[in-house]
């Protein structure tokens, strides 16, 4: 095929190549096999006046004036020959007759393409005519639908045809010919002719081409047409990794997308931030859309079912989601069938997890010494054990995954059915999570004009949590393992759990993992049915109805014997449950038309949705015994409460995509959203966006010797909203339950709980994005650069108000946050040969966050036990600032910490001497993936990292403060003990928190580079497979978090005790550490 393209000379002869030429080639194909271009007026008349120019320039001129495209081989056709042309209103044929009158070039007009050949070649073809046979066949796409207009050519010759409307073709061939099937957006396939009478082939989507289709909001777009900023992650990039939750898979995979994985707990999942945090009190999580259904959570989604993930990052691509798009949108599509024969697959892995490090703690003598120094004593002779609590708490945990799927596609039917079981133990004793899920995706083209389909999934989830992010006195297991003295043993003689001799209710951490029986279980049905009706060739109607229903239940029982807390309450049982039901209908009309060089794609739709949520929780205490472990067994009900809420949304959407000559691209979005959560004065919001693209390489002035295959400038602007606040937010609600006792009986009391705000509305994010997409080295290298400025104003702020009002806060639209940043991705196919390939993907993101306006309010958050708030949010500063004293070492005379007296008043106090001591935001984040393949072997190395962020290591406040009966880490062995002592560890002093106050003493650099994934696989092929019933057999070994390079001294720098908090990031407070996971897996297909 390449021989026929007019740029082949460049490739062969001087190895310079031009993007423009390549694109022209693609356009030639478009033109040549364009179905719609059946009858381009042969009598199109043009006027040209060119003096002494190369033939090629004449051809260019004709291309620009008409829809004709030229197809020829530069080796045969001399296009550098100088000619002069002067014609007025003549047909193209006449012009060409004139141009080629003095040469041996002949031309043939086929639809809108013109093939130039030389007489010599034609002669040779004619000779071969004598030995021709005829082959016929059908060309289908991956779904088994016929593809019209596919080019079918014989390799090395100039004979070809294209498939008709039903995908059929017929061609004269001779033995030994190789047929080349090609079509825009699909991989070109070659098939040798060996006397077959007919053949049927399926073309695979070409994933590397600019014409690859990406998923955007309410539709798809070709990469080359995209004007917004989005990243796509294929399901293949998640494969081979021991991932329980999809969010865990995205870290480092896409520029501008950061995933905060607050802990190593399997049920924790990650929190996604797209281009920074945009909100303070509303959620900053992106909107998730699974198979077209907008959902709130994706923890129970089976990652093995994912085909692709699209992340819409800028306002122009997310604006179609209006009031829920401000944080970006993550569109997840699940797998479909790809092969006509159908594939039965079995995938499984089994592996282990462990903590990457442990911390050294005091042994019994060291502990007793410390207690002596604090003046605390007990009858230590009773406590002679030596227990390594970290050893007791952390374990080598198992994880396993089994997936069976059947998929295929045939005659308009596409199906994918899967079942999955995933079981992940946490590295902390008793912690585990399991999921069983099933999935059915089905679609059928019932008539030419009518398609119907459904995506259904059902999942059951179960987990057992452990308490982390809490002090040992509050049942925190991680801190419990660090500060429980080693001397006390696990059990007392009577079988109860031991406690600290100096504070017996502080029991050992095994009490925290083993004593409570707890379990969370949920089930979820997620289903959608859709129909697509082609009303005409240009107008399509789509209708979709979806349901998301989930039920969750948490149960807890603490027996009345084994723990202090259980004994005091004589047993505790609690239970809470929640039900969520969500339905959404979407009705869309789309119109697609190309006229001359104008192509227009219009979408309009109407969306209605409603969510109902109810919850119930109750607790009972005072159990006679352990025989009944539910609330029914308790004799005193502590509380029983329920709530029910609804929220409704209505939306109208409209989109216009316009392209001129594939050169100038524009997309305009409009969405109007009405939401029940906002005040009557602002119930409706409008969200417009505009984006423009300019494919520079399509311009004439870009000379043929250009280095680039494609250059596209993108510009996008848009407004999107965030409505992620509680239902009824604008109402002044009055709560029941403020009861009192009159005459020995409880009487009901009511009191206002929230303040009314009739003006309440969504927060608005206005984002401007400038992007540049570069493709070069023969499409082998892609560089995508984006710069954005993102302003979020009318923040939905739970504004702290004077408590003298009787309220602590009021939801108001105040304040403004700005995120601006730069991000880039480099995607390359460094090497691609039959035996060896090397794909690489590097992305890097820089984001700068600043609170522009907060109405002079200072928000202190991130409460550290007994030390106050460590995170300060204020105007003119980035979010995530740590606030505290500047520690200047330990005074050799007193052994106390020296703090900098910033206001110089001679006294160290919180009012004047605290300042910004760090920031949790990284300077940049990056991900670097390398996939190497040699024959059957595959090696995938994924590095991920962040740089320039601080972690506030509040764990050390618990493990190094030396203020009470807690055991500590071995670092305190360096503590100051006598005047003149030079050390960085202050003295032990009972009950005095001054030395361990919030200060730079606990700030650490949280930068890290992590060898996130290393995966080695072997794909069996050749005789072994051919002689078996298998079609695929693949084995792999994967290690996650194999090595982490960091200066952080705690367990792991990827940490946040405050989970998904917008304001508080990077605080380590007895947080469940990240784990190292190693698995062995197998993929088998039949």
């Amino acid at each position, binding site marked *: 095929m390449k021989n026929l393209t007019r740029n082949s000379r460049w490739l062969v002869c001087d190895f310079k190549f031009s993007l423009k030429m390549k694109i022209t080639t693609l356009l030639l194909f478009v033109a040549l096999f364009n179905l719609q271009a059946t009858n381009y007026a042969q009598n199109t008349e043009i006027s040209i006046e060119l003096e002494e120019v190369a033939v090629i320039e004449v051809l260019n001129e004709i291309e620009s004036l008409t829809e004709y495209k030229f197809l020829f081989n530069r080796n045969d056709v001399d296009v550098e020959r100088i000619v002069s042309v002067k014609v007025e209103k003549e047909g193209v044929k006449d012009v060409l007759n004139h141009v080629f009158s003095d040469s041996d070039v002949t031309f043939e007009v086929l639809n809108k393409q013109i093939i130039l050949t030389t007489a010599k070649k034609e002669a040779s073809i004619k000779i071969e005519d004598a030995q021709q046979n005829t082959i016929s066949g059908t060309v289908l796409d991956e779904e088994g639908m016929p593809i019209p207009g596919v080019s079918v050519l014989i390799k090395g010759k100039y004979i070809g045809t294209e498939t008709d409307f039903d995908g059929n073709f017929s061609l004269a061939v001779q033995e030994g010919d190789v047929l080349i099937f090609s079509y825009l957006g699909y991989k070109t396939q070659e098939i040798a002719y060996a006397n077959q009478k007919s053949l049927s082939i399926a073309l695979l989507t070409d994933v590397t081409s600019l014409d690859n289709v990406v998923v955007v909001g309410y539709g798809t777009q070709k990469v080359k047409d995209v004007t917004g900023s989005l990243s796509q992650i294929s399901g293949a990039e998640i494969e081979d990794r021991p991932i329980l939750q999809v969010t865990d898979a995205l870290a480092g995979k896409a520029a501008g997308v950061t995933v905060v994985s607050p802990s190593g707990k399997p049920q924790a999942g990650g929190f996604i931030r797209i281009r920074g945090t945009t909100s303070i009190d509303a959620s900053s999580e992106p909107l998730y859309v699974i198979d077209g259904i907008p959902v709130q959570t994706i923890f129970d989604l089976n990652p093995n079912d994912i085909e692709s993930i699209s992340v819409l990052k800028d306002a122009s691509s997310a604006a179609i989601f209006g009031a829920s798009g401000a944080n970006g949108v993550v569109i997840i599509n699940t797998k479909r069938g790809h092969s006509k024969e159908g594939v039965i697959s079995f995938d499984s892995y089994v592996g282990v997890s462990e903590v990457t490090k442990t911390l050294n703690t005091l042994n019994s003598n060291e502990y007793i010494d410390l207690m002596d120094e604090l*003046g*605390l*004593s*007990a009858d230590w002779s009773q406590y002679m054990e030596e227990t390594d609590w970290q050893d007791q708490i952390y374990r080598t945990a198992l994880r396993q995954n089994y997936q069976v799927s059947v998929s295929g596609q045939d005659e308009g039917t596409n199906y994918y059915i899967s079942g999955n079981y995933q079981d992940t133990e946490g590295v902390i004793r008793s912690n585990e999570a399991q999921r069983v899920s099933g999935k059915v995706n089905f679609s059928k083209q019932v008539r030419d004009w009518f398609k119907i389909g459904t995506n259904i999934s059902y999942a059951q989830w179960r987990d057992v949590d452990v308490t982390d992010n809490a002090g040992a006195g509050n049942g925190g297991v991680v801190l419990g393992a660090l500060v429980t003295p080693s001397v006390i043993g696990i059990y007392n003689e009577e079988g109860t759990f031991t406690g600290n*001799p*100096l*504070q*017996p*209710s*502080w029991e050992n951490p095994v009490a925290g993992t083993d004593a409570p029986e707890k379990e969370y279980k949920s089930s979820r049905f997620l289903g959608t049915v859709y129909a697509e009706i082609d009303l005409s060739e240009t107008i399509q109607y789509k209708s979709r109805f979806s349901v998301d229903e989930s039920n969750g239940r948490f149960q807890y029982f603490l027996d009345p014997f084994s723990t*202090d807390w259980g004994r005091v*309450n*004589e047993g505790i049982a609690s239970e809470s449950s929640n039900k969520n039901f969500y339905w959404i209908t979407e009705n869309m009309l789309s119109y697609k038309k190309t006229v001359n060089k104008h192509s227009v794609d219009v979408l309009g739709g*109407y969306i209605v949705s409603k969510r109902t949520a109810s919850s119930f929780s109750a607790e009972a*205490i*005072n159990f006679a015994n352990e025989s009944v472990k539910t609330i029914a067994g308790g004799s005193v009900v502590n509380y029983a409460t329920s*709530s*029910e*809420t*609804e929220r*409704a949304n209505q939306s109208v959407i409209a989109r216009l995509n316009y392209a001129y000559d594939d050169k100038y691209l524009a997309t305009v979005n409009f969405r*109007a959203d009405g*939401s*029940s959560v906002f005040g009557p004065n602002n*119930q*409706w919001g409008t969200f*417009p966006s505009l984006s423009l693209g300019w494919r520079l390489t399509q311009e004439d002035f870009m000379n043929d010797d250009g280095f680039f295959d494609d250059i596209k400038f993108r510009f996008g602007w848009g407004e999107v909203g965030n409505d992620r606040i509680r*239902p009824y937010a604008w*109402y*002044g*609600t*009055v*709560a*029941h339950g*403020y*009861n*009192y*006792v009159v*005459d020995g009986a*409880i*009487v009901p*009391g*009511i*009191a*206002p*709980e929230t303040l009314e705000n009739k003006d309440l509305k969504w927060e608005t994010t206005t984002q401007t994005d400038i992007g540049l997409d570069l493709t070069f080295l023969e499409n082998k290298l892609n560089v995508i650069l984006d710069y954005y400025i993102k302003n979020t104003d009318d923040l939905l702020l739970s504004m702290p*108000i*004077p*408590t*003298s*009002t*009787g309220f*602590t806060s009021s939801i108001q639209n105040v304040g403004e946050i700005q995120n601006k940043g730069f991000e880039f991705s480099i995607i390359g196919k460094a090497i691609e040969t039959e035996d060896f390939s090397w794909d690489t993907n590097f992305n890097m993101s820089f984001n700068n966050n600043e609170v522009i306006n907060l109405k002079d309010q200072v928000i*202190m958050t991130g409460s550290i036990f007994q030390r106050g708030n460590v995170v300060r949010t204020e105007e003119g500063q980035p979010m995530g600032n740590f606030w505290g004293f500047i520690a200047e070492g330990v005074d050799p005379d007193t052994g106390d910490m020296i703090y900098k007296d910033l206001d110089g008043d001679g006294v160290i*106090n*919180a*009012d004047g001497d605290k300042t910004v001591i760090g920031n949790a935001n990284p300077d940049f984040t990056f991900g670097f993936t390398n996939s190497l393949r040699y024959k059957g072997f595959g090696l995938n190395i994924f590095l991920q990292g962040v740089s320039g962020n601080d972690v506030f290591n509040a764990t050390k406040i618990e493990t190094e403060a030396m203020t*009470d009966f807690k055991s500590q880490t071995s670092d305190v062995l360096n503590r100051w003990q006598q005047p003149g002592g030079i050390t960085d560890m202050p003295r032990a002093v009972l*009950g005095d*928190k001054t030395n361990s106050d919030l200060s730079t003493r606990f700030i650490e650099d949280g930068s890290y580079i992590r060898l996130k994934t290393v995966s080695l696989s072997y794909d069996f092929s050749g005789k072994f497979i051919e002689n078996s019933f298998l079609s695929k057999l693949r084995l792999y070994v994967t290690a996650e978090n194999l090595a982490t390079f960091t200066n952080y001294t705690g367990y792991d720098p990827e940490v946040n005790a405050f989970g998904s908090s917008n304001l508080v990031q990077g605080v380590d407070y007895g947080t469940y550490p990240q784990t190292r996971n190693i698995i062995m897996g197998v993929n088998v297909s039949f």
Partner: protein
Amino acid sequence: MKLLKNIAMLCVIAFINQGCGSDFLDLEPISSSTTGNSYKTEDDIEAALVAVYNSLHNEFYTWDNVLMGDVRSDNCYAGPPDDVDIWAYDQLTIASNNSRIFNNWRDFYRGISRANVVLDKIEGIEELSNTRKHQIIGEARFLRAFYYFDLVKQYGGVPIVEQTGTADPDKTQIPRNTIEEVYAFITADLEFASANLPDSYGLGMDVDKGRATKGASNALLAKVWAQHPLHDYAKVIQYADAVINSAAGYALLGDYPTLFNGNNYNNSESIFEAQYIGGTPQGNWGPQLFLPPSISGDGWRKYATPSKNLINAYTSELDVVRVNTNIITERVPWVDEYYNADLPFTPVPFAYKQKNADGWNSGDQVYLLRLADILLLKAEAMAYLNEGDFGRSLVDQIRNRAGLANTAATNGEMLDAILLERRLELALENHRWDDLVRNDKIIETMNNLQELNLITDEFVDYDMNENKILLPIPLNEIDRNPALEQNPGY
């Protein structure tokens, strides 16, 4: 752009109204009501009033009052040293960022706000009888005064807030009123309450002791005028007499321990009492924080350890009845800075005024106003005014009930005798700090204290001064309301 948006908006709304019911988006809360629909009937306003009483179940009246009145003064030590905020109460190092003072401030104002809601909404209730209406207003104003009294004692002048339901900074970020203005506001509320509340609701003592009555209002007026910077002792005597001679028939119980044995709440001596029912969500979790392991059933170190100084006060008066009623001693496995630094299992005293923990769900009630306090207050007023027997017979009444002989104090010593008698009688009921402040004894008392910390082997330096009489205005509140000025010294 704006115009375009509006036109588009109109089209959209027109379209939607065709397509879907226009009330689709107008959803009202299901499991809570709204300020718009909650205050319509008599039952509604009664429920709103109940919520004002509910503030008596907040942390301050549950246990912080003991920290404030007894731990802060010479009556108690803090307890566990890991609770640094409470430790600061004991050591008199309370800083403006102490979380407890902010929580208390917030809770007092929450109660005040609920009272303001009642006063605001009651005008719209039509079916209400005039008598009940005035009672409700009286009850709300009594409770509002009750909460403001605690505010003004602890923080000095605080903002007087009468409106509800706004977050407008112009109306909410208001400066502090003066101490005198707050007291004037309190007395106005109480004078209305005294005039409009009944001596008895006629439904028995379980109702009369739990609800605001004329007697409660007069008792509070007596306390307010005593604590007032002007110390109007004539008014103290006037309102104390109103209580003593009340038709409600207030009378001391014959036996001091009976008051606190848990079986005789809502008795004739009680004037106003926080009501609880054990084993329900309206149970009292406070006692669990004070009672020793043998009673509470848990093993951790408890709060408000009675001080050696307090125990000495009982011992030197040979006050066996009251020390045994108020304090229990138990051998514990932990060290205590003041009792057993070296040897575990030496006896440590515990606050024992409430005697039942019942797993954080006690039925023990809290006396907020009781006759013995009012009698001693009257005695104090008489002694200040050099009136009659200088309050001697009132003091003797209290002493005799506790099994002690008449006081041996001369007239000149009566004020000291009364202060001591109040300490012995009212220990662990949040009176000591206020008593010392009112009698201008707080600074010398705290600075004269000799409390030996056995661990450091040093006497605690309380460094008491004028500034520490008041708490700092909570920093968290100043952040919310920059118009607030901090108290001197903080």
